[in-house]
């Protein structure tokens, strides 16, 4: 027995409200991120990831407040991503009670930002989020590139090389999302997950495409991920976190029960 594989529910939050919908039978106000986070904590989630998609500056203050409220009641690790662009943004989120921050497009604009962030706050709280899409043609060796703007804009950056570079710059963890799979419920891009997981020494969180519990299992057993992230299968009560953990344990994966 040793380190458990982690299950991480993800909340997409806009102006202090969970979006993409959350539907727990016994939560009346399903859009309140604090209530949702508490519920996942009670279910035994190993961490919570909070993805802030708020566009406005005023809305960001709401986000900080929401993070404070979650941190006051939920005593498992909390990662906040979305809109983290400066050292000051990181400081604000950590002071609000986040344990880690996810950095995505700011790293693409300036890869040294990750270095500065890790030097200032320690690698343990710097998660680099990578949105990747397959660019190789049928029959070619598989290749993935980093995409921005929700998977619409290519950057020309090779995803595996980028992961290696980000870890060299001090990323303590990689949150890897397949933009081909995100929202499809067809399962993770396992080859992508495996390629990144094999290339770096830090933990990799697989994300994008989970539609059932076998997908979570495959992310670990075939993708080599250290943690699996999912949103909608949990939000709509299709599966609970304990359902997922018991199933993974039956498949021989070590989990925290």
């Amino acid at each position: 027995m040793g380190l458990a594989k982690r299950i991480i529910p993800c909340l997409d939050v806009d102006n202090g409200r969970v979006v993409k919908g959350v539907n727990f039978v016994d939560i009346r106000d399903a859009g309140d991120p604090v209530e949702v986070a508490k519920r996942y904590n009670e279910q035994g989630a190993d961490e919570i990831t909070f993805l802030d998609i708020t566009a406005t500056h005023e809305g960001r203050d709401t986000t900080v407040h929401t993070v404070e409220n979650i941190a006051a009641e939920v005593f498992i690790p909390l990662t906040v991503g979305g809109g983290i662009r400066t050292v000051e943004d990181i400081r604000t989120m950590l002071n609000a009670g986040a344990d880690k921050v996810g950095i995505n497009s700011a790293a693409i604009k300036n890869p040294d930002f990750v270095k500065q962030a890790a030097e200032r706050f320690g690698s343990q709280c710097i998660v680099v989020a990578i949105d990747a899409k397959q660019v190789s043609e049928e029959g070619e060796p598989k290749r993935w590139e980093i995409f921005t703007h929700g998977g619409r804009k290519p950057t020309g950056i090779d995803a595996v090389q980028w992961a290696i570079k980000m870890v060299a710059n001090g990323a303590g963890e990689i949150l890897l999302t397949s933009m081909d799979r995100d929202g499809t419920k067809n399962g993770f891009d396992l080859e992508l997950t495996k390629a990144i997981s094999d290339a770096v020494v830090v933990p990799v969180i697989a994300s994008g495409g989970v539609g059932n519990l076998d997908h979570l299992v495959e992310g670990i057993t075939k993708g080599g991920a250290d943690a699996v992230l999912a949103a909608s299968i949990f939000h709509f009560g299709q599966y609970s976190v304990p359902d997922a953990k018991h199933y993974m344990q039956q498949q021989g994966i070590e989990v925290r029960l």
Partner: protein
Amino acid sequence: MAKSTIAVIDYGMGNLHSVASALEHVGDNVEVLVTGDSEKILAADRVIFPGVGAIRDCMAEILRLGVDQVVAEVARTKPLLAICVGMQALMDRSEENGGVDCLGMFPGQVKFFGDQLKNEKGEKLGQKLKVPHMGWNQLHQEIEHPLWQGIDQGSRFYFVHSYYVHTDDPSLVAATTDYGVQIHAALYHDNVFAVQCHPEKSSPAGLQLLSNFLTWDGQS
């Protein structure tokens, strides 16, 4: 009953918010002070010595602010709980940042995990070890102790670290954890207790540990 006060030592390294809020959450009638003021720390009933980040920076601030003397005084007089890099700072020396001398309150070293699994002889097995050691791992309690009260043997706690503690004195080990090597995940001596994991992020077992600390009289 008078409020009991808990000082969380603030020496400018990282976020102490979660330690403080977890203590407030579990404590009845407690006042939690996040402070670097030595008078306030020495006046508190109990003290937490946390730490986040790189050991060189932590030790530099500890020495610059005189926190070493405060911690030494607390260790003589009242219950002290060291967490994560706070625990590492109590050892003789750390391999991190090219080698850094620490406070030497516990005999032993802080070592790098390395990037491969090793066998008992220290030979590399060719299987990759992810570093940092991040996530929920089991604490194997090696002794009975008031701080383990109500915590099941083998309970999981949240860890995040790239260097691990190894003491030269097995009689000080309160718990071990396996991650490629055997980590000395908790040490104790008299009224000092130290953990590598983050109890403040390890609900529910970690909150139980903090709750136990709030009523601990400093005896083993």
